[in-house]
């Protein structure tokens, strides 16, 4: 009996105990708390969402405005900063500048999202969740966005680490700048083969990358690589030349009601739900411009209470007579707003509640020189310098198009509409044409280059532009000379067409560091070692001998690259800092 019990005990032990503990599946638990790849991507919308999140990294004001836009426009001295970032006006950007760190960080977040997407898309296709066509399009978008991000990284910082795999320790050292641009070319070529044409893109997908956009960035990257022949080929691709065209009226390019227009190749999309508040409590979500955009921040302080950046009178002076781009780019004392949308809705400046209230209150700031309600951006006798007189009196009107915005002050309904949902155009067809012109200049096809310039200039004049290219005046008001050097002609057109957008300084640097420094020096009369503001040297309404935030610091060769963010170096000691920082 005793023996029997023992045997039963031993058998029970082995039959029950050991198999449980040794069964391998016992260790395979399912994550029901967070989404694994297997759990998440089981319908097309999920895979699309994965790619949407790559675009999302560009909805970031530190990245878009305080890094790319600042770089494109403050570096040329066409615009200046007022507020916390005034060191940009002297090219004294510290490696600890937070926005540049965000630019770096979010760029790599986007790259990581793209790198992670490729595997997911392939698996989803293999599982039959998405079809080949959608898989191609989504892969193409991921390649495009990764390539575009590397384009801005390399253009801004020089060579950066190339991260091309979903798994990395993040300790990769910097590649050469050329290697990065070659990667951009490779990514864009893949994107060209996978993306949809603009013509076949459903309306609902307006804003997604297209073949044409990929060709535009491929061409730009090739120009950085001095491969002008290859660039020309990309710019001449029918995806660009037949699917995109210049808007007839230059004003329409940046108009609020003409977003995603036929000239736009790639624009960062914003969206504000109808009725959502647009003040600090509303659409503004950290880490910045997550849903809405911040154009009103740069409007005059007198109008919005802000005025965080402002224009250089030299830019205002440089527009050739008859160039319709002038007041649609920069406005100064006595200038009326030229945006069709704002005129339609508000009748110009005089329609803003702040101006009406001020005028009704007898405030001379809002009273025209004729004693009537002000309808110009300051008057010839009372330029809008801001309350500390620290701004030049000139403002960027290219980004003053959304008629709903009021800035920090409120409209008649008592609403302060700081944040809007106007898309931000990173690449448009006019830039492609000007870039193509530069390629042709480099390849000695001067007539071809002139023909491309003429396309852009004729549109700017709303008909036939003058045959002779000549600035309206020099920075000091002296008479300008005709521009005859073909490359300088292209550079001048880059400036007058693209300033206040996201590309000018990049395009100048792409033409060459020395070329950029010389161009900016000539355009603004910069002085070596001059760090303090100077009075406006040019005769005119702001020529009062006082300093109003006009800087003339000379750009140096070291400063054509952004500093690698200190925080990035701190976490990856393999990163070397750019010289001079």
């Amino acid at each position, binding site marked *: 009996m005793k023996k029997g019990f023992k045997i039963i005990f031993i058998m029970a032990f082995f039959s029950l105990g050991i198999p449980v*503990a040794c069964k391998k599946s016992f*260790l395979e638990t399912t994550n029901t708390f*967070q989404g694994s790849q297997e759990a998440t991507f089981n319908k097309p919308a999920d895979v699309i969402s994965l790619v949407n999140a790559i675009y999302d990294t560009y909805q970031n004001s530190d990245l878009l405005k305080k890094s790319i836009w600042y770089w494109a426009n403050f570096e040329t001295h066409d615009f200046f900063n007022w507020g916390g970032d005034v060191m940009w006006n002297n090219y004294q950007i510290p490696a600890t500048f937070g926005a540049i760190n965000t630019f770096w960080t979010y760029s790599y977040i986007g790259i990581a999202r793209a790198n992670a997407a490729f595997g997911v898309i392939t698996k989803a296709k293999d599982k039959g969740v998405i079809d080949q066509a959608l898989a191609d399009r989504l892969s193409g978008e991921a390649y495009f966005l990764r390539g575009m991000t590397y384009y801005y990284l390399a253009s801004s910082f020089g060579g950066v680490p190339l991260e091309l795999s979903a798994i990395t320790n993040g300790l990769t050292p910097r590649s050469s700048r050329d290697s990065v641009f070659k990667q951009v070319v490779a990514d864009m070529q893949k994107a060209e083969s996978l993306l949809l044409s603009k013509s076949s893109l459903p309306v609902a997908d307006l804003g997604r990358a297209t073949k044409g956009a990929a060709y535009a960035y491929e061409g730009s990257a090739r120009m950085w690589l001095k491969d002008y022949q290859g660039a020309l080929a990309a710019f001449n691709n029918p995806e660009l030349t037949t699917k995109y065209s210049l808007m007839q009226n230059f004003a329409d390019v940046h108009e609020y009601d003409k977003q995603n227009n036929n000239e736009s190749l790639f624009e960062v999309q914003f969206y504000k739900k109808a009725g959502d508040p647009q003040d600090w409590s509303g659409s503004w979500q950290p880490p910045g411009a997550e849903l809405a955009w911040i154009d009103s921040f740069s409007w005059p302080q007198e109008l919005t209470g802000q005025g965080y950046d402002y224009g250089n009178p030299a830019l205002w002076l440089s527009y050739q007579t008859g160039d319709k781009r002038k007041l649609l780019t920069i406005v100064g004392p006595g200038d009326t707003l030229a945006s069709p949308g704002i005129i339609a809705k508000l009748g110009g400046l005089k329609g803003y509640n702040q101006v009406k209230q001020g005028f009704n209150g007898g405030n001379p700031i809002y009273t025209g020189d004729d004693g009537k309600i002000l309808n110009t951006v300051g008057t010839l006798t009372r330029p809008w310098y801001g309350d500390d007189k620290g701004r030049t009196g000139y403002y960027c009107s290219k980004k003053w198009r959304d008629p709903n915005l009021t800035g920090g002050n409120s409209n008649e309904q008592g609403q302060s509409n700081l944040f809007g949902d106007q898309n931000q155009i990173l690449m448009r067809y006019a830039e492609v044409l000007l870039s193509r012109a530069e390629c042709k200049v480099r390849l000695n096809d001067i007539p071809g280059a002139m023909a491309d310039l003429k396309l852009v200039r004729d549109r700017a004049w709303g008909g036939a532009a003058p045959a002779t290219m000549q600035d309206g005046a020099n920075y000091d008001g002296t008479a300008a000379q005709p521009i005859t050097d073909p490359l300088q002609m292209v550079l001048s057109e880059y400036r007058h067409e693209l300033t206040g957008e996201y590309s000018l300084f990049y395009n100048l640097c792409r033409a060459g560091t020395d070329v950029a420094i010389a161009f900016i020096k000539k355009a603004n009369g910069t002085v070596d070692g001059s760090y303090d503001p100077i009075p406006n040297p040019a005769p005119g309404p702001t020529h009062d001998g006082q300093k109003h935030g006009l800087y003339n610091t000379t750009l140096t060769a070291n400063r054509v690259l952004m500093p690698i963010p200190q*925080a990035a170096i*701190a976490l*990856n000691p393999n990163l070397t800092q750019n010289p001079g920082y």
Partner: protein
Amino acid sequence: MRQKSSSYAREIKRWLSLSLFLVLCLAAVSQTRTVTGKVVDPDARPLANATVSVKGTNTSTSTDTDGAYSINMPANSTVLVFSFVGFQTSEVDVRTNIVVNVTLQLLNNNMNEVVVIGYGTQKRKDVTGSISSVPAKQIEQVPVANLSQALQGRAAGVQIVNNDAAPGGNTSVLIRGIGSLASGGNNPLYVIDGYPTTGGIQNINPNDIASIDVLKDASATAIYGIRAANGVVIVTTKKGTRGKVQVFLDMYLSMQSEPKQYDLLNAFDWATLSNEVEAADSTHTYHGMPIWKTPAQLHSVDWQDAMYRKGLMQNYTVGFRGGSDKVQTAFSFGYFDQKGIVLGSYFKRYSLNLNVDFQPTTWLRSSTSAKYAYQDANVPFGTGSLFQLAVNPPTLDSGNRKTFLIKDGQGNYGFYNPQNSNVFKFNNPVYSVETNDYSNITNYLLASSFLEATLYDGLKLKTNFGVNLSNFTGSYFQPEDNRANLQYPGSIVSSAFYHQNMNNNFEWVWENTLSYDHTFGKHTINFVGGISAQKNTTNLMGAGGTPPNNVVRDLGQVSNLKFDQYGNGQLVSTLASEFARLTYGYNDRYILTGTIRRDGSSRFDTNNKYGVFPSGAIAWKVTNESFMQDVSWLSDLKLRASYGEVGNQNSIGLYQYQALYATGFPSNVNGGGVDNLGYPFNKLYQNGIAQTQPANPDLKWETDVQTDIGIDAALLGGALTFTVDWFKRDSKDFLLTLAAPAQTGYTYITRNVGSMNNKGIEVAINYRATAGKDFNYGIGLTLAHIKNTLTGITSGTNFVTNFGGLGLTGQGWDEFTRSYVGGEVGEFFGYQSLGIFQTKAQIDALNGKAPGGIYWRAATKPGDRYYADINGDNVVNADDRISLGNPQPNVFGGLNFDATYKAWDFNLYFYGVFGNKILNFNESNLESFQKRGSEGVENVSVEYYNNHWTPSRPSNRFARALANDDATGNLLPSSAWIEDGSFVKMKNLMIGYTLPTSWSSKYSISRLRLYVSFQNLFTITKYSGLDPEIGIQGANPTQNGVDNGTYPTSRFYTFGLNLTF
């Protein structure tokens, strides 16, 4: 657990040989005779069921319930052996006596004690690993809520840190230093009556404990493999006894005094200071409230008085132990209730413990242990909040128009003027504590049962199954507060809020082992091998919102219902393991132990699913060597050495190896921030999904490579024992969620990021002696020195900063520690203060040399702090910050003295740490007139008020008083706030008296002991704050030793009794 004796074998042998002649002579006349007597413990309690045997024969008997025995001595036999579990075996020469009464000594000072090791027991003398044992007697001496508090200073190398003195005990247990930087990554494994759990032991009634054994080195712990790197604490509860049922009652009542307080300004002095600051403010930006202009009319409030109170702690344990030869049972019911010394804080626990042992046949036995506890605890205002008491302005005048008191007894609570920017951010903590409702209730059940069959002599098969449940339900309710708004329309209304969360944890373990113990000739083999499976399922949810009124608390009716982020759902983890240990002993001189465990864990990906953890150890019992036979002063000497690898997987959560995707959540979950991830096309918003965590197939457990060399020695015939261990602990691949290089695309990633090293020496010395007939005493000392070094971080940087900020407000206080590679973990970090600038010339001279014309700050004036230019570039900036000292002690330990004299017993216990630094953030608050980190002003200490720098009263210690310090930076983290944190605390003084049996037996009481004890009578320290015993907040070693207003402790005055029927 059969007892064997051998430690005195040699001596006895020698003694025997000396008396050989006599024995031979007596043999001729010897005959069978009866010896009788009584066996008692050192407290003269009878020991029932003690074994009395005739040495060298099979004759033996047991004592009865009164400890009495009677045994027939065969001819030629002269020695009786008395043994009982938990006591030293005693051999007595009985040739000349027929009545022999024996007092058996407790085992705790002896190499013969039995220690509980993983999956078995071992005699202390045969142990090859490093194990500290704490007997029940020591645990019972100090009244504590949390069992781990009772271990403080008792086990060498085990650092019990009282993180604060909140009711219920908030402790960290560090065995042999810090091996991981992660919060909670240093918790040991607990094995409670055979059940392995990482959950801690705060739910166990300390009165139920029979012994605690702390396994410290890899040789001892490796059998627990992937959970063993931080050591293993084995808890054994009291079992039933054979014989008469004993009913017992243990109870105490403990009064706790109010804590020490900061000496703060009253309203008059404070308003006077405000006026002084206003007058000296050259920028004319600070304006006190008009009423402060006339200090004499203000009413003072004392926040410390209002929030501190006397505490009361009660503990009752009733139960019984008893049984027959076949069944033994122990049952206890415990009730513990502590009212904390801070308003609103309490801890209550009801506990049941049941142990049943069956032995139905000689070859089959089982043991079942079940522990239930209900715990209800709350600390609404504790560590981190208490600094408010020191900074809240000492007057409520011009706030609540109904009362200037903290509370007026009519239901009105004072509040600060909601419209004055100097005070509107302060609140009345008494109001919050008394009007908010909190509930934190946990039910615990831990039950395990084994069945063991002896298949063959020495061969045993055992199956053990256990379950471990904990159910937590918590809620928080805050009524709408519109009081300020009623009196000051337009000022803040805080809406009502209700939050409820639940956390339901169920775990089971099943372990099957085979063991074999055999001795043949000079060889002894002990083997245990087995398999184990464990599965943990946690369900949790939490949500909150605005309730419809102040009564209804139904989440279904709240508005703005929000679920906790990542707080709702189910988590499952599993562990499947095989393990084995073989101990081989030769001739009672050489012992070899080899241990191996293979753990399969669900926490890691396929590549790293299984970890193998081997260890080996050798021990040499030197005194058993023939050449030691003549060394009489040394009764025992054993040398030990061990080496092994153990693991740690608790530093990280589940599924950290998986690529994870989420919609609408930030990619940098740890860094905060909101990122919707979505994007619009054609002005229609579309969802976004992004990876929130990259795949990490290489993620693996932390590995600790541990080396231990130890000596166990006994001198003076065993009266003096000491154990010394040198150890080295190399923790590699420690797991951490750490700031990641931006190029990874993630702000934080959990990875195996670094390595750490701990080296140390532990000493435990015990001396037990008798002076005269009735006086027995013992002295015990434990000391440990541990040197911790961060040896590497793979992420690229050479330091990590403190994770989390402890909510320290004030400029620069987001970073206060940096752990550098090559340095110790948690080093304080900041500027070096050189005192206070006395003259403008002094500042001008430094500014003159500075490249930009400014040495430190443009606003610096005489009276401001003077920081050192460390890097010699003539300016002070963030680059001039340095390591300012380490919160980890060089040495820590406990000193215990206990004695008995007749019916009296006495215990004195000290605990001390030496060589550590404290970052006294609170002192910087007490020297700040500016409200830290925001607009407003706050109270300061009397010392600061009387001594702060003014032109007429210079100070090199206290900076000038400012309403805004942000421009001058006088209060940044700096050496000014670093203090020596060494202390010796008198933890316990206890005097007990056991009533004579002549008296107690009249009432059928077998024993009644009364005692009084005092805790925390005094502390010897240089620390200027309230209490130098400052812990590791959030169990995070990067924020250790920061005094930001920790829940204070104070003296306990305890009266208790132990009653046995």
